[in-house]
C-alpha cells in the first residue's frame, strides 16, 4: 500500500520544528524514526498533509551521566539505548527493554522520544518509564518544561504534549546496587506487541523489600502502576511476593482483543508481576 501524498519539511533545529508545527497546524505530524507512523500511513489509516522530519537533529542523540540520573537525547535510537554502556551500567531495565521493541531493524530507526510521544499503552517504554519515575523534557513556543512520566500519558494514544511541543530529552534515575529490576514481556511471538508487560524496579534491603515500583503495559488506556502490589511489597519479605502479586490487576481496565481477553490479561498481570518481582530480587 502507498501513503497519501504529503509535503515534507526537514527541521534543522528544535526551534525550527516548533515553528513548522505552528505553521502547518493540526494536519502536520512530526516524524523521527517513523516506525509507528509510516505503517499507519501505508495502510492509509493516517494521512498527514505535512511531515516534519526531526531525524536530522543529530544533537538530540546522546546519553549523559548527570550524577543522579542519566539524560538521553530524545532522538537516541532504541538500538543505541540498548547498546549504550552508561545505560547498561546505571539503568539496565531501559537498555534491556529498548532491545525488545520491534526487531533490530526497527530499533535501528525508532527513537526513545518517538515511542514515548506515540503514547501507545501497548508500548513497552511507557510503563518502564513509569516504573522508573523518569522525566521528559519538552520544548514548545513558550520554552522548556519537564514532565514526570507519571503525568505524561493521559489516554489512549494521547499525551500531555501540547500541539507545538517537541520532546527533547528523557531523564531516568541511576539505579543503585540495592535496586533490582525486571521487564517481563508476554507476547505471542517475539516480534509482537506486549499482550501484557510488567516493569519491576525493586529496592532491596537485607533480604527484604524496602519498596517496589511496578509498571504495567497493555492493562488500560495508559501505562499503569500496580499500586496495590507496591503497597503490599513495601517492607515485605521475599516470601510475600506471590501473595502481593495477586492484586496486580487491581484498578486496571484491560481491553479484549484477538490476543487476549480482559480476564486473561488480568491473570497474566498477576503471574507476570510475581515473576518480574522475583527476577528483580535476583538481579
Amino acid at each position: 500500500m502507498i501513503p497519501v501524498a504529503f509535503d515534507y519539511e526537514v527541521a534543522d533545529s528544535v526551534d525550527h520544528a516548533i515553528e513548522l508545527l505552528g505553521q502547518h497546524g493540526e494536519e502536520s505530524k512530526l516524524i523521527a524514526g517513523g516506525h509507528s507512523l509510516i505503517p499507519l500511513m501505508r495502510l492509509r489509516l493516517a494521512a498527514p498533509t505535512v511531515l516534519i522530519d526531526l531525524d536530522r537533529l543529530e544533537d538530540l542523540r546522546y546519553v549523559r551521566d548527570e550524577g543522579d540520573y542519566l539524560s538521553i537525547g530524545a532522538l537516541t535510537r532504541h538500538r543505541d539505548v540498548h547498546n549504550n554502556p552508561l545505560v547498561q551500567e546505571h539503568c539496565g531495565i531501559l537498555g534491556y527493554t529498548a532491545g525488545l521493541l520491534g526487531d533490530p531493524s526497527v530499533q535501528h530507526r525508532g527513537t526513545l522520544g518517538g515511542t514515548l510521544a506515540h503514547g501507545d499503552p501497548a508500548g513497552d517504554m511507557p510503563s518502564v518509564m513509569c516504573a522508573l519515575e523518569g522525566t521528559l523534557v519538552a520544548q514548545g513556543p513558550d520554552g522548556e518544561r519537564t514532565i514526570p512520566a507519571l503525568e505524561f500519558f493521559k489516554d489512549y494514544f494521547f499525551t500531555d504534549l501540547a500541539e507545538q511541543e517537541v520532546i527533547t530529552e528523557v531523564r531516568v534515575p541511576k539505579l543503585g546496587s540495592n535496586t533490582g529490576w525486571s521487564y517481563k514481556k508476554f507476547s505471542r511471538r517475539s516480534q509482537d506487541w506486549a499482550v501484557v508487560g510488567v516493569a519491576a524496579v525493586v529496592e532491596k534491603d537485607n533480604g527484604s523489600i524496602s519498596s517496589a515500583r511496578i509498571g504495567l503495559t497493555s492493562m488500560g488506556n495508559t501505562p499503569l502502576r500496580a499500586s496495590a502490589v507496591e503497597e503490599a511489597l513495601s517492607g515485605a519479605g521475599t516470601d510475600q511476593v506471590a501473595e502481593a502479586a495477586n492484586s496486580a490487576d487491581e484498578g486496571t481496565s484491560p481491553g479484549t482483543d484477538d490476543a487476549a481477553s480482559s480476564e486473561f490479561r488480568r491473570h497474566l498481570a498477576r503471574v507476570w508481576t510475581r515473576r518480574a518481582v522475583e527476577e528483580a530480587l535476583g538481579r
Partner: protein
Amino acid sequence: MRRIQVKVNGVTYEHEVEPRLLLVHYLREGLNLTGTMVGCNTSNCGACTVLMDGESVKSCTLFAVQADGHEITTVQGLAENGRWHPMQAAFHETHALQCGYCTPGMIMASISMLKENPEPNEDEIREALEGNYCRCTGYENIVKAVQLASQHMDQPTAAS
C-alpha cells in the same frame, strides 16, 4: 518533489522524488536495484531489509527523502570484485534458502547482526532475525548459515 542525494552500493545518485516515495520503490524502480523485495506493508516480514549507514533497516518503512545524504547497501552491493560476501556463501553452503525471496533481506539482517555481535549463540541469532520471515526453510539452516559466516567474516569468498 524534493531533491535527494543517496549513495547506494558505492554509487552516488541524485534524483527529484515525491516525498511519499518509499525507499524500497526508489531502489527497485528508480535505480533498477531489484535485489531488494517487498513482502508486506506493515514492517513485519523484512524482505526489504537493506543497510543504512551500515545498520539494517526496512526500506519499505522509510521514505526515500529520509535517506537523503545517507549511504545504502543492498544485497547487490555485497560482492567485491565478483567475490561473494561470506554471508552469501554461507547461505549457499548450508542450504539456507529455497524460493529465495526472503534471502536478500535475511542476508542483510544477518550481516548487521554480526556487526553488533560477532559471535552470537543460537538464541541470539534467532532473536536477531525475529523481524525477517522465511516461509520455506523453517529457519534452522539460516541459523546455521549465520553461525558458519560468523567464522569467516573477514574473508571474501570466491564466487561459485
